[in-house]
């Protein structure tokens, strides 16, 4: 592999990390409240709003059932509005975030539902506000599952980002398609795969370690 290609691999890795990390932060910021809503608004939940719960649930399912490649094209106007352009790494973040928020919402919901309802009852019996129950009990008690979910979400973003790259977003996916696939450069293809594999492994390992540390004290 020439130094020029090594350089492009380096640049592409940076782009992938940029897309994934910015998207991850935004997805977490939106997905956490969404998941909390899904978890508490259900019938018999902390803040039962069955109609709202159903409506949001349907919306999330719609979001999750649209294939990413279609979603990317469908939300081009939104992308232009938010990023000012529809091509490039920054523009790719918009569809990444839109696609991953419903997923993250479900992951958070799942984690929060695992918290024993007796603990929530105890917190309510002690005179907690809803905000206190959510921030001081629900989320801390679910933190191991939440961290595993976060790792899962970041890994999905890495996968999506490769796809986004292929349609002009830059990053490892872009490089793999342009050089590795179209120009039959097996070495470039392998390079991209190795970097992605290392990133996925790293995120999974970190997530597992952190979650296990919390589980040691809390289960």
């Amino acid at each position, binding site marked *: 592999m020439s130094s020029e290609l090594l350089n492009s691999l380096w640049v592409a890795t940076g782009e992938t990390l940029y897309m994934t990390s910015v998207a991850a932060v935004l997805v977490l910021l939106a997905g956490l409240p969404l998941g909390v809503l899904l978890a508490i608004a259900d019938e018999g939940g902390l803040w039962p709003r069955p109609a709202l719960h159903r409506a949001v649930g349907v919306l999330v399912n719609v979001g999750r059932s649209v294939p990413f490649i279609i979603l990317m094209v469908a939300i081009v106007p939104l992308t232009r509005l938010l990023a000012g352009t529809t091509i490039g790494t920054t523009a790719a973040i918009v569809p990444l975030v839109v696609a991953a928020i419903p997923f993250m919402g479900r992951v958070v919901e799942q984690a929060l539902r695992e918290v*024993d309802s*007796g*603990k929530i*009852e*105890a*917190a*309510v*019996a*002690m*005179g*907690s*506000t809803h905000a*206190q129950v959510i921030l*001081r*009990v629900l989320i*801390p*008690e679910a*933190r191991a599952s939440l961290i595993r979910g976060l790792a899962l979400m970041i890994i999905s973003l890495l996968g999506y980002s490769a796809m986004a790259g292929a349609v002009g977003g830059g990053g490892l996916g872009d490089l793999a398609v342009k050089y590795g696939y179209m120009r039959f450069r097996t070495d470039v293809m392998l390079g991209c795969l190795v970097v992605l594999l290392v990133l996925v492994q790293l995120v999974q390992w970190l997530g597992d370690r952190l979650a296990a540390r*919390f589980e040691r*004290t*809390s*289960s």
Partner: protein
Amino acid sequence: MVELHEVSKLYRQGDRDVAALREVSLRVAPGEVFGVLGQSGAGKSTLIRCVNLLERPTSGTVRVDGKDMLSLDDRQLREARQGIGMIFQHFNLFASRTVEGNVAYPLEVAGWSRTLIRERVAELLALVGLSDRSKAYPSQLSGGQKQRVGIARALAPRPRLLLSDEATSALDPETTRSVLDLLRDINRKLGLTILLITHQMDVVKELCDSVAVLERGQLLEQGKVLDLLSRPGTRLHGLCYAPFAMREWPANPGRRLVELFLVGAHATRPVLTTMARRFDVDANLMEGTLDRVGGAPVGRLLFELTGEPEAVSRALDFLREQGLSPEERAHV
């Protein structure tokens, strides 16, 4: 302290209403330990949750410390709840918090300062005997220790009422005893009123001053534990004591079968031997139990009284003069 008036709770099940509670009324006096005894499914857990409104009654009124709970708005209800401690069968401790973090929680909610919280937590952990485990996590504690943390947490904001939801049902007999002792202790030391629900007769006998028996959502009876226990015919008596074996007994004024319930001082004084000596009769013990209710000895005896018919009658009168109520059993 707690006053429920005709509290009913209906649940929608399919297309019909199922009553978990039917017009339940009860009064818990300040400073007493009040037990609600019932089998699972009797509605105990709904009843205790209607006191701090974890569940809202369908009808009826709930007063705690004079306050009409159902008329409070959200903020007032949260404040009222801070004055009502609650402990649970499965402890419901926060696994992500240490022992001291758990005890501190209700104080954080109530807006106490850090310094005050630290002092109060240390005080409570000393009270429940867990000062050396303050940095431990719940997962590192035994069941009895967990319930002690639960008790410390419930007592933290100095409540005047403690609700206990089957607090000893998940514990082994020895641990149960030590938790009951602790509850009795804080009831006396702090003058704390305790309302508890249980399916364990032993809890009622050891800890409660008053009791209510709940069956299928309805209150059958309520009163002082000793009172109900000593009256054959009450549900509590029936639940506590198996009936004495029925036997054929010839009607004979000189041989009578007598059931006697001895409470407190009577159970420790030699009433029967005094009677036997004074009236020259024999009391032949046939069946009986002796145990303790609220720390006081209680005996229930079945004996055969033999002697001159006249003497036997006078002996029975003597027992009545002593404030006892001997009851004759089974004639043929």
